[in-house]
């Protein structure tokens, strides 16, 4: 399952911002880092791929399915079932414990039921990230690194072919940065998933298969 972008254009007229991506193709199992200065459109590209924003021109397709052809409802459902989202500030729900945060996306996804098998799957992922002993603990009682691992578990539970991560290590200390990224990459590589990550941290770039510099508008392969 590949991710392909062709002739993409998106702009915020009032801010004079224009994002243009002539072509970008990401293969299954590939990890790509999006880098560039603030305002270069990294997060905007992530939101376009996720179907949160709608391009003015061009196409985005996941495994041949044109995201840009889908209606708002279908894009939302596509996002719920086919994409895992990870955010800089984790965006966990504080009133839920670890288990319920991991199962959150599954609860919202159409046609997905919380079965014992799915719960076991969640436990397996959490165990892989070393948090199983905190299964019913409130997320407010977890450290920053642990919270981001919970967010990673939530993003991967429904086995999405594409994982979109917006500065996933931005709020973490160096030790946790490395650990979370290693876990994320291992889980994505193991599932043959595409990992598209926005990052400002150049020390992490060698870990990615490819780095795309947004400031150059054209994709440049550096690795």
């Amino acid at each position: 399952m590949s991710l392909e972008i062709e002739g993409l254009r998106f702009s915020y007229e009032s801010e004079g911002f224009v994002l243009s991506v002539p072509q970008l193709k990401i293969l299954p199992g590939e990890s790509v880092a999006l880098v560039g200065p603030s305002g270069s459109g990294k997060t905007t590209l992530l939101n376009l791929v996720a179907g949160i924003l709608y391009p003015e021109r061009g196409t985005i397709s996941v495994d041949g399915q044109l995201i840009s052809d889908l209606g708002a409802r279908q894009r939302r459902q596509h996002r719920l079932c086919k994409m895992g989202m990870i955010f800089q500030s984790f965006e966990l729900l504080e009133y839920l414990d670890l288990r319920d945060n991991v199962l959150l996306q599954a609860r919202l996804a159409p046609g997905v039921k919380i079965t014992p098998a799915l719960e076991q799957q969640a436990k397996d992922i959490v165990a892989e990230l070393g948090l199983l002993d905190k299964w019913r603990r409130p997320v407010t009682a977890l450290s920053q690194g642990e919270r981001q691992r919970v967010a990673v578990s939530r993003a991967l539970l429904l086995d999405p072919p594409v994982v979109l991560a917006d500065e996933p290590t931005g709020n973490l200390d160096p030790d946790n940065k490395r650990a979370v990224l290693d876990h994320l990459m291992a889980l994505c590589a193991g599932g043959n998933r595409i990992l598209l990550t926005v990052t400002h941290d150049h020390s992490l770039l060698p870990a990615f298969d490819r780095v795309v510099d947004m400031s150059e508008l054209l994709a440049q392969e550096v690795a």
Partner: protein
Amino acid sequence: MGDLFYLGSRYISHHRAKLLVLIFAITLVSWLPVAIQIIVDQTAEQLLDRAESTPLVIGAPGSPLELSLGSLYFRAKTPARLDYSEVKKVEATGYARAIPLYYRFRAQDYPIVGTSPDYFSYRGLQMASGRPVALLGEAVIGSKVAEVMSLGVGDHIISSPESVFDLAGVYPLKMPVVGVLAASFSPDDEAVFVDVKTTWVIQGLGHGHQDLNRQEAVGQVLKREGDNLVANASVRQFNEITSDNLESFHFHGDNASFPISAIIPNAPDEKSAALLLGQFQEEREDVQIVRSRRVIAQLLDTVFTVRDYIVVGIAVVAIATAIVALLVFYLSLRLRSGERFTLARIGASRLQVQILMATEVVFVLLLSAALAALLITLTRQYGISLMQQLLLA
């Protein structure tokens, strides 16, 4: 939908303290005005019923309200004193039979009402078990007294001393319960009925003691002056009237001057009642005769006015509470804007987000409404007795 309710329930559980305060406040301001309305209406209805069944009451000069409440509810703490001779005077008019009431004493929390057998037929009271009072010292108890004190026929009830420090005061009298009244849902359920003479024994106006004319009592007699004997303190006084010592009980003085609290004139018709009223109002300044319905209606006017003020006050508080609740919900939604954003980004629909956000408001409103409804039901059932105790204590 079940998953959304589950998530909503987790939110509610996490914020239970805040939501409980809100629920408590909304429940209270929803329930209070209705409760006051119910209690006041029921109280008014019951007070008027009782007053209507007792059109006239005669007592010592003083507060007509105190006299009415005392003779209808036996709740006056220190009832004004009326001579028993007034009973004869009322009957001498030929307009009514006179039912004496003496409700100065208590057995624990319940008034002891000294009266005549006419009282029971006047009120239409039925015996649930046992028989009416026949002898001095016997008691018939109301259904509530029997229930609360777990008493029945064959048990005893003891009058409470007025003051434990007053050595010359009222001594406790142990009285056998010979009957239990069927529930009448009136103040009679919460009273202990005895013959009026028994209340005089409780007061110490009558007593029984060892026979001083016995051969063995010679050492107890200090002085003999004709029929008058002076004895020393070793003479045993009886604190219970039994068939063995009944004969020894006697009263010192003229019964006519003994005290009672009030008289209910039982007139055969309205004309007789009106004539009695006119006669007493014109000729007697040393006693008062009151139309209890009018007195109670005046009391209720005051109660209704107070109720209206209270309801207006609560309405203002209710408006303030509603504004605070709206503010809390608004702030809560503001605080949850990040959560809404997250849910939207991971793919939740607008409807899903709205349902999740609405769970809190719906839960608070539904639970408050349910609690208020429950409290209103309980108020309808039990509020009246609570209010009466507050009003008449």
